[in-house]
């Protein structure tokens, strides 16, 4: 056995990285293989850019707004709906990522091989991040640029748009980390989807009765901050607080997910 074995090169990954490359490739095959990504891309384009078209034509038909005003409304719609819709997409699409594998027994099978538990969670995080960023944010944003040129003969200013786009990215990563963490804490999908979506839509209600600081330490203001930044509008002076807090929450959630999954009993 040793002789036959010696000709094969052993995997060089060590520690938490052990198995990461293999798991990441497998996750990517699920997201990008066999034309699945085309279906995802078409859905996101229909939701985000299709909505922009509807708003643009609706505004133009009303005859009340100038092209510049319509462009601003469309940017607002694109960024706000984009932030909310991608968060919903993340919660719905990722709710079973860990739970399904725990329930089916594939997680136990994979972890009976030399793969670290951290690699298992991080491979999912990175693969889902790339898929959502690419298909639900980057591609629709590029198309939005094309739409702007086509509809109003002018593209949005690059730097402000990038600022707003990065806020949307942070918003998405927060819900991705939250969903993965909930997947390590619960054994059924119900609480994962319920808490994830409840938190997202709770953000529409909480500011009505909670002190301002409560709103600021969560990602709720980001859906409004993104279009404001992209349009170069004046933003509240406290805007760095939700950005920093969301980044911290994202890291904390991933830390909790890694810690909890490291103690999972199969």
């Amino acid at each position, binding site marked *: *056995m*040793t002789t*036959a*074995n010696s*000709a*094969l*090169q*052993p*995997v*060089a990954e060590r520690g938490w990285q*052990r*198995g990461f*490359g*293999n798991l990441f*490739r*497998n996750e990517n095959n*699920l997201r990008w293989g066999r034309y699945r990504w085309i279906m995802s891309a078409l859905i996101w384009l229909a939701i985000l850019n299709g909505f922009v078209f509807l708003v643009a034509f609706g505004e133009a038909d009303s005859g009340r707004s100038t092209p510049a005003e319509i462009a601003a409304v469309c940017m607002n719609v694109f960024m706000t709906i984009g932030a909310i819709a991608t968060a919903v997409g993340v919660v719905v699409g990722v709710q079973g990522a860990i739970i399904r594998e725990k329930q*089916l*027994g*594939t997680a*136990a*099978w994979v*972890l*009976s*091989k*030399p*793969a*670290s538990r951290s690699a298992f969670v991080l491979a999912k995080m990175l693969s889902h991040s790339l898929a959502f960023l690419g298909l639900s944010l980057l591609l629709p944003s590029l198309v939005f640029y094309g739409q702007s040129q086509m509809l109003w003969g002018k593209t949005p200013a690059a730097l402000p748009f990038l600022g707003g786009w990065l806020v949307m990215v942070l918003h998405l990563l927060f819900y991705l980390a939250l969903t993965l963490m909930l997947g390590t804490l619960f054994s059924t999908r119900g609480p994962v989807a319920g808490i994830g979506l409840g938190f997202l839509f709770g953000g529409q209600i909480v500011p009505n009765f909670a002190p301002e600081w409560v709103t600021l330490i969560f990602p709720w203001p980001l859906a409004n901050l993104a279009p404001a930044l992209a349009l170069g509008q004046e933003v509240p002076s406290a805007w760095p607080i939700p950005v920093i807090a969301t980044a911290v929450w994202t890291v904390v959630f991933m830390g909790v997910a890694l810690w909890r999954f490291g*103690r999972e*009993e*199969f």
Partner: protein
Amino acid sequence: MQTENTLVIQTHGLTKIYKGANALQNLDLQVPQNTICGFLGPHGAGKSTTIKLLLGLTRPTKGKAEVFGLDSVRDSVSIRQRVGYLAQDPRYYDHMTARETLRFTAHFFYSGPRQMIEDRIKETLELVGLADKADRPIKGLSGGERQRLGIAQAQINYPDLIILDEPAASLDPMGRRDVLEVMERLRKHTTIFYSTHILDDVQRVSDTVVIMNHGQLVAHAPIAELMAGKDGVVYSLTVKGDGQAAQTRLAQQPWVTSVTAGSSNGATALQVSVTDEHTAESQLLRLVLADADATVTEFGRKKHNLEEIFLDIVEGDKANDNRK
């Protein structure tokens, strides 16, 4: 470098408590290198829990387990590098084919060369008889084919230890035979630790047997020793004529520990437990036949079967529990 007597698996007071229930209690287990160890016990005896503890899939409440001298909690990944494992109800990714499953498994161990990995996959598929179904999605495979795929993925890395949890449970007789043949072939290169409830299989291939009940180890011995029975060497005779006289005469011998008798159809069946096998072989029959009225119609060393021994041990354990 490991020697012939090296212990591949060693546990010390290994205990697992799930929500207040003792799944495993103070297990002290030793499995030497290059042996096939059958791990027996009724459902809920703690077999799968022990296997999961060895692989680091779950953590001990108390005690410790070592595989290749490595700690099952601290060095779990290093242990799994050298182990092949087949779960009781193996689950794989349904979107993959058998070949893709083996490729995915192989890449946890090897990074290249690509062609050698593909050759290894092909060789393994042929070994388990799945070469012609290698590119079908797993969801189309039968239970037996999935089990064979399980064995294939468990030994893709040329493991030093193969752990199989009920490998033949869902197989038809031919499938079982194939699995046992694969195990026989692998024993030259590796240690096999497998749980099963099919006692015939254990009797056929195992070197040592471990019997668990209610989370506790109740027997751990080489198969030959266990098959000899707990009463030591026993001879059985069927005597026609004066069976009572034969029983009395035998009971007086210093190398005889007990004689039990039962009558049916005018013959007496004697079970003679002895301490000295050689003396018994040369003297026992002569002593009975010394009585001119006695005729021996059957004589031989009593052969226990594993099922009998297993039931005896497990039910004896249950009776002890009831007395407590």
